[in-house]
């Protein structure tokens, strides 16, 4: 079972990295979402995989899984939603403002801007 989870993390990471390296904003956003899954699952597995022992205290339970990674991942999931929303609104603003959803700034334009600054 550990092999399944580890390979799933690997697949999620690979898909995430590949998409992050694309040239348009939308795949990059999807890619970061995939990386988020991978990272959250990875952090979660630092408590090791335990089946059928949730950290809910009961009188007849004999063992519990590690609750701390769960608490950390829970807030990470919510925060990552907030961050995704921010990135999406930035991407939207860039696209609506320039009619262009490329993530790479063209190098020539940037150099010209720098030289302009240097002259002042």
């Amino acid at each position, binding site marked *: *079972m550990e092999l399944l989870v580890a390979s799933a993390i690997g697949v999620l990471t*690979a898909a995430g990295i590949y998409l992050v390296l694309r040239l348009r904003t*939308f795949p990059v956003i999807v890619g970061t979402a995939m990386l988020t899954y991978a990272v959250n699952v*990875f952090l979660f597995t630092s408590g*090791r995989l335990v089946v059928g022992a949730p950290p809910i205290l009961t009188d007849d339970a004999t063992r519990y899984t590690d609750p*701390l990674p769960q608490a950390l991942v*829970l*807030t990470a999931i919510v925060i990552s939603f*907030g961050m995704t929303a921010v990135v999406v609104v930035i991407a939207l603003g860039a696209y*609506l403002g320039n009619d262009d959803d490329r993530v790479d700034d063209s190098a020539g334009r940037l150099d010209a801007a720098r030289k302009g600054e240097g002259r002042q």
Partner: protein
Amino acid sequence: MSLFILVLLPFLGALLPGILDSAGRRVCAGGTLAVTLTALVGLVSNLPALMAGEVVTARIDWLPALGLNVTLFLDPLGFFFASLILGIGALIIVYGRYYLSRDDSMGEFFTYLLLFQGAMVGIVLSDNVLLLLVFWELTSLSSFLLIGYWKHLPEGRQGARMALTVTGMGGLAMIGGMLLLGRIVGSYDLTVILENREMIQDSPLYLPALVLILLGCFTKSAQFPFHFWLPHAMAAPTPVSAYLHSATMVKAGIFLMARLWPVMSGTEAWFYTVTTAGLVTMCLGAVIALFKHDLKALLAFSTVSHLGLITMLLGTGTAFGAMTAVFHILNHATFKAALFMSAGIVDHEAHTRDIRKLGGLRHLMPVTFAIALVAGLSMAGIPLFNGFISKEMMLEEALHTELFGPWWLVPALATFGALFSAAYSFRFIAHTFFGKARDDYPSKPHDPGTGMWLPPAFLATLVIVIGLAPFLVEPLVKGVTGAVLGGVAPVPDYHLAIWHGFKPPLYMSAVAVAGGILMLLLHRWLQKAWDVTPRPEAKPIFEGLVEAVAAFARGLTGRLHDGAFTRYAAILSVTILAGAWHAYATGTVGGATRAMQPAPVVAIIGWAMLVAASGFLVFAHRKRFAALVLMGIVGTIVSVGFAFFSAPDLAMTQISVEVVTAVLLLLALNLLPSETPRESGAGRRLRDGLVAVAGGVGAGALAWFLMMRDFVAAPISEYHLENSYYGGGGTNVVNVILVDFRGFDTFGEIIVLGIAALVIYALTEALLSGPVRARLLDRVPNAPLAGDRHPLMMVVLTRVAMPLILMVGVFIFLRGHNMPGGGFIAGLIVAVAVVMQYMASGYAWASERQRFPYHGIIGAGVLIAGLTGIGAWFTGHEFLTSSFTYIHLPPIEEFEVASAAAFDLGVFLTVVGAVMLSLESFSRLARRSQSTPAEHAMDIDPSRGRGDAGLKGGA
């Protein structure tokens, strides 16, 4: 007075001038003066203890683990410098009050001046070298502010920048040197360092430490080849020049050399570096000073020269040299500050300080003339003035110093320096005050008011008193010398006196004075020769150097940071992979300590779905809606996986976040193109694929290695499990961790979430108020619109579902402390319920019925959470300590009331507000593109032309 108060007083007092500025110039200067005088009195109150041979100390442990403590000590050396700083500071404040014009902001000036004063006092009283470094940098900064005080003058700004660059670089070197010194000794306390002479000088780190510390001292005290910044700093107002650049700040480097004298001096490296640098600086500065026409430039180079003299004396490493250095520091501070102030008076009254436009002022400004004459003759080394005595002692010391072989080299150079020193002093007096009175001064000069001439007159009096009766200051000089020597050598048995008989120093002195007079007479021809001699100019060289460094940095940044995001992402991924590979290849990994658990069929099916969905996502990511669906599958499997591996809270959170994320991305896709064009070629895709596969293998392997091994140390979760019920009052340990054990984290996180939502709102507002608005209004939709904008089925379903979902939300919230659930999950569920209404009936319809602004909900949530935390203070506990009790009300079962529930309510509200504010902002963007807002809950798009009124739903 406690040393702490002594150091803090100028810093606290720095707040005064700004406040008093509006109360008038007299009050402002008076307040500043009162601060300085109080500090001076406080300093003198420690004198009896010092006379009794004690060292006054004060100590607070600040960061003991780093060896950084606030430890101060006052010995005669510190006392000597502190009284110079505060005493001359007081005179400068009086002088500055009259020097500054009505247009200058006096509050700003005195604020900077007091900041500087505090930093200087801090340097000379620090017992901890790290603390000393902090004050050291503060003097550089406050000096920057003071030099650039006249912001409208380009020379002021350039001079300030140059001073900051040079002394700042020196400061950096000094940090390295001090850290090395602390490492050698094993303590950063100066008093400890000063006791370990052998340990330091035998250490292999001695030489690097010496070089770095001397770099700091030489840059600060303007020693060759770093002397060039000081003349450019003369763009500062004259009180600043008199205070910082003659009497105090430039002596900080000398102070440090004197302070570290017992442990650093006496080696060949010290002797050759310090003596040579001092000697070269002394001669170079004296020669240049003679040919400067600007009074302040002349004095600046003269200061460089005299600082060189003191440095040379410290470099010789003898007790007599140290004593002479101490005495000359005192003499130089008195006559040079007086000269600067006189030059300032001339500039102030005649509106020029170009020596070629002056002359004949002795009848017009008799008082100023008298002061300048006394101070100038002292600088020239004429008997009966204090400069003469220390110059004699310097020549005596030079006679006994042998550098690079020939015995006559040092005495000859010392005489040469003294000769030019006499020459420029004579020129300063003669060309400014003697000669015929002219009628072409830019302004008719006359003596200034009493307030302006009294401070330099006081100093001039000291010049004469010390010159006539040097035995008065002998105890002071000997006491300070004792502190400099630090027990390494005995204080020399030498008496400060005007007359020591016909000895070689007297002859050398006579040669110097006679030569000086000769130079003055020949000055016109010498100046012509000087003007035609090509010389390297420091300023263009310095600026060229700075420009070259800046161009290099610009080029490097431009190449590495060219705006290509994908390139950064690729570089980042490859770098992380390389680092991980290095760690894996060089580190050791123990064997697996856990057995692999068997995988049930359902897990394999889930895994297969996740892998398939991810694979399709990569290959079909250009179809954006399909990508969104595939992402949803992945998210669902992940949340099912959480449920499977004993994490019900995570599962619930993940699935609700999936819903809101899907809504969010759908709203975004409404405005973005629905397909990604194929842009990257096969080679690039292959490259990205390789990086991605390598990253995936790495992440997977890391997770695999981690999961197959037991915890290295016992996890702190044991504590959480044990104390969750009795300490936190809940059986759902994850929730108790969130609201109690790590409540502070959660508090921070909901604040971040709230800020993110506000950022989204602000960005949307900015977009809608700009040119994008028109674009959105004219937008042609990607796909044909559905006929019914607000479908009947969906509207009915969401209305029916809403109370049910809200009830589920409340239920999840209430049981959160003991069963899976809690504020985060309940907040997401409620947000889903509300967002469904937006989807079903449109933005306008839904927002009309929404009474509380989402900003307010976010704010209320953070406020409630914060107040709950503060509530713990009233029961005498730490912030966010939760307390709980059980209440039994007859009709209902016994239930628990915990303060954690209030905290969780704050979390709940923040999550609802943040999610709704983000989604609402997005839907506002989308709404603009529609032709008419819907008036009714259910309607049919009229543009389709069916126009069947019967189908329009009633509100």
